[in-house]
């Protein structure tokens, strides 16, 4: 049983102990998704994380939930978590106000291999709240824009009102030379953008398959279809990375709640290279 326990995260003496942090701001992105900005001023040293990693967010007396970090990795004093209100803990988090205190431990898990994209095109494919764990990637790429060729963000949402980070999506396109294509499943006549599934957006970009690194995050069914589409377009599997989601409890590889076949998502994931995860994605019982 070697290497079962994940390394102790930076600044945290015991990976199972939460530390109190102050809620600085709450922004509702849509009807059931909100972004909590946490003040990390009292954390033991700067809170450093890599894009794709997650924290365990604790509502005292209610419980913990694993939430991806969605802010700029270079800003260590404020930390964003974009949260979909779907269960007991996230509903309790949704009721919090500015100035309230919650518990936090982390960061945990693997990260998007941004270095693998140096000198290449980067294509980010996201759906729904799947854009949240990829947002730190966009910040990181934009900060060192010259290191990459094309940066493409494909984003699909349920409706125009459900889209996350709407202002930023425009900003990325206008200020950072990022090709940003957004689509929704349905829209009214005021929506001038694309309507259809996110994989349909590949029709509008000319992908240089051999020279593109792809990061994918969204509902599993969306990721499966995206992987199929990338295969049809000739993108080598080892250039594709996905972030998987499961309910996590301990986050350090003890409890097995997040077991996905032979792997624990909290420890080896959530970001995986496609060749490692593809056989598991097709197994119904997982």
């Amino acid at each position: 049983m070697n290497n079962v326990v994940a390394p102790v995260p930076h600044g945290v003496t015991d990976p199972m102990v939460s530390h109190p942090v102050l809620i600085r701001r709450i922004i509702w992105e849509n009807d059931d998704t909100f972004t909590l900005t946490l003040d990390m001023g009292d954390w033991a040293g700067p809170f450093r994380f890599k894009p794709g990693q997650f924290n365990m967010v604790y509502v005292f007396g209610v419980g913990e939930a694993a939430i991806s970090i969605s802010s700029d990795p270079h800003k260590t004093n404020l930390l964003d978590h974009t949260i979909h209100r779907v269960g007991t803990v996230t509903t309790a988090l949704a009721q919090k106000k500015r100035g309230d205190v919650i518990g936090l431990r982390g960061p945990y898990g693997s990260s998007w291999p941004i270095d693998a994209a140096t000198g290449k095109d980067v294509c980010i494919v996201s759906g729904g709240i799947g854009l949240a764990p990829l947002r730190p990637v966009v910040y990181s790429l934009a900060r060192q824009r010259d290191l990459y060729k094309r940066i493409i963000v494909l984003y699909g949402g349920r409706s125009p009102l459900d889209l996350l980070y709407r202002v930023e999506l425009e900003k990325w396109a206008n200020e950072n030379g990022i090709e940003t294509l957004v689509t929704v499943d349905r829209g009214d006549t005021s929506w001038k953008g694309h309507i259809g599934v996110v994989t349909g957006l590949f029709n509008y970009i000319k992908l240089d398959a051999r020279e593109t690194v792809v990061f994918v995050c969204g509902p599993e069914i969306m990721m499966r279809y995206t992987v199929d589409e990338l295969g049809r377009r000739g993108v080598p599997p080892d250039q594709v990375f996905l972030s998987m989601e499961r309910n996590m409890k301990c986050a350090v590889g003890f409890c097995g709640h997040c077991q996905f076949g032979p792997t624990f998502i909290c420890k080896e994931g959530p970001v995986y290279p496609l060749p490692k995860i593809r056989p598991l994605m097709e197994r119904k019982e997982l």
Partner: protein
Amino acid sequence: MHTEDLTTILQQHPFLAGFIDEHMKTLIGCASNVRFAEGSTIIREGEIANTFFLIRSGRVALEIDVPGRGAIRVQTAGPGEVLGWSWLISPYRWHFTAVAVVETRAIALDGECLRNKCESDAGFGYDLLLRLAEVMESRLEATRLQLLDMYGLSAPEVRA
């Protein structure tokens, strides 16, 4: 527009990628260049369907009029994509309304002309139908995914 220009435009459209010269010559007789201003209706639900559009630029939205809710946009088609196959299937009526979301340019292929050429030239007809079947398959797959409402619900194993 000269026939040569139309041929070049048709050859560049992804729907016709690899279309052999002989079939391209057959097709060109049914083709004309069209342009739609932003907001204009291109086809209307219930009306006779007699055109197949190859979109060159812009964006077209397919709408269904839902009583009490107005027009709901269910899909868009853009450059390199196609619009409409009801011209092929009896009773040749549009099932959707299509509106130009932005100024849109397309090649319009006359439906009756295409049907006649498919009847008289089986090779041409088979090639065209195979391409249309690919589009239909892709749209069907996309529609199934949209029906899942995949962004609306979280799987039980990830609720917390």
